[in-house]
C-alpha cells in the first residue's frame, strides 16, 4: 500500500461543490435503499458516528487542543475550532440551559445543503443528520455521552439551522471502541 508523503497539519483544498454533491449522492442513495425517512435518518446518524470516532483523533492531532474541563469549554471548541477546521464555518453558541448541560449551535449557512431543496415526499428527512452522528461519536471518544439533534432547519423553511446539544453523562469506563 503506497501512500503520499505526510501532509503535516495543513488542509488539502477541495472543491466544496464536490463535497456537497457527494453528500447529496449519499443521502439520495440511502433514500432509495431504505423505505422511509426515519430509517435514512438513523443510517445517517450511524454513519456520522463512525466518522466521528475517527475524526476526533485527526482533530486532536491537528488542533493541539487539550482535554476540556466542562461543557462550556467543549461548546467553544466545537464551534470555534472543530466546525471551522472541517466545514469552514463558525456556528454561534446560544440558549444555554440553566444547569449548563444544554446549548444550541446556530449555523447561518450549512455547506452540506448548498443547492439542496427537500422534496415534499421527504418532509421528515433530517438531511444533515450525519453531523449529529459525528458530534455524538467524537464526543463519546472523549468520555462524553451527548445527544445532538436538529431543532431548526433552513431546508424546512426555518430562518436558521439549529443543532441542540445535550450532555447526558460522563463516560467513566474506557469501553472498547465500538463501530456501530
Amino acid at each position, binding site marked *: *500500500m503506497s*501512500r503520499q508523503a*505526510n501532509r*503535516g*497539519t495543513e488542509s488539502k483544498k477541495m472543491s466544496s461543490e464536490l463535497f456537497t454533491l457527494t453528500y447529496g449522492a449519499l443521502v439520495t442513495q440511502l433514500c432509495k435503499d431504505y423505505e422511509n425517512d426515519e430509517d435514512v435518518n438513523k443510517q445517517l446518524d450511524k454513519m456520522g458516528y463512525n466518522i466521528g*470516532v*475517527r475524526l*476526533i*483523533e*485527526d482533530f*486532536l*492531532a*491537528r488542533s493541539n*487542543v*487539550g*482535554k*476540556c474541563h466542562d461543557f462550556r469549554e467543549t461548546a467553544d471548541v466545537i464551534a470555534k475550532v472543530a466546525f471551522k477546521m472541517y466545514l469552514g464555518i463558525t456556528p454561534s453558541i446560544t440558549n444555554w440551559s440553566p444547569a449548563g448541560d444544554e446549548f444550541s449551535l446556530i449555523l447561518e449557512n450549512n455547506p452540506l445543503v448548498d443547492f439542496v431543496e427537500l422534496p415534499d415526499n421527504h418532509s421528515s428527512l433530517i438531511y444533515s443528520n450525519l453531523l449529529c452522528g459525528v458530534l455524538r461519536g467524537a464526543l463519546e*471518544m*472523549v468520555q462524553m455521552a451527548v445527544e445532538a439533534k436538529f431543532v431548526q432547519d433552513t431546508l424546512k423553511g426555518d430562518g436558521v439551522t439549529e443543532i441542540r446539544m445535550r450532555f447526558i453523562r460522563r463516560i467513566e469506563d*474506557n469501553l*472498547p*471502541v*465500538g*463501530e456501530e
Partner: protein
Amino acid sequence: MTVHNLYLFDRNGVCLHYSEWHRKKQAGIPKEEEFKLMYGMLFSIRSFVSKMSPLDIRYKLHYYETPTGIKVVMNTDLGVGPIRDVLHHIYSALYVELVVKNPLCPLGQTVQSELFRSRLDSYIRSLPFFSARAG
C-alpha cells in the same frame, strides 16, 4: 513546577514512607491499596525493563496521552531529554494518518498495517538520539 508526592518502597513492596505536598486529587481508595497499586505498577515495569536490558536497570519512560485515551509509552536510556514532540508526531503523523484515517484498519485492536509498522520503525531510527548500537 511542583512536587506532588513521593513514595519509598523496599524490596518486598512495603511502603516505607509516603509524603504529599501538592496533590490535587485523592485516589478514592485506602492508602494501603494505593501503595499496592503503585508498587504493582513499578514491579511490572521493572520486570519489562530487565527483559530488555538485564545489565542496566536505569531507564527513562516517556508518556504521552491524548484526550481520547491513546497512550504512547516510549522507554529510552537516561541520555534522552524531553521528547513530547516526538511522541506527538508518532500519534499525529503516524497513528492518525496511517491507521485512524484508513477505513480498512479497524480500531480497538492490534494494528495490522505493515505500512504503519515500517514508517514507525524508520521514524524511530531517524531520531537524533537513536543509536543502532545500544549503550
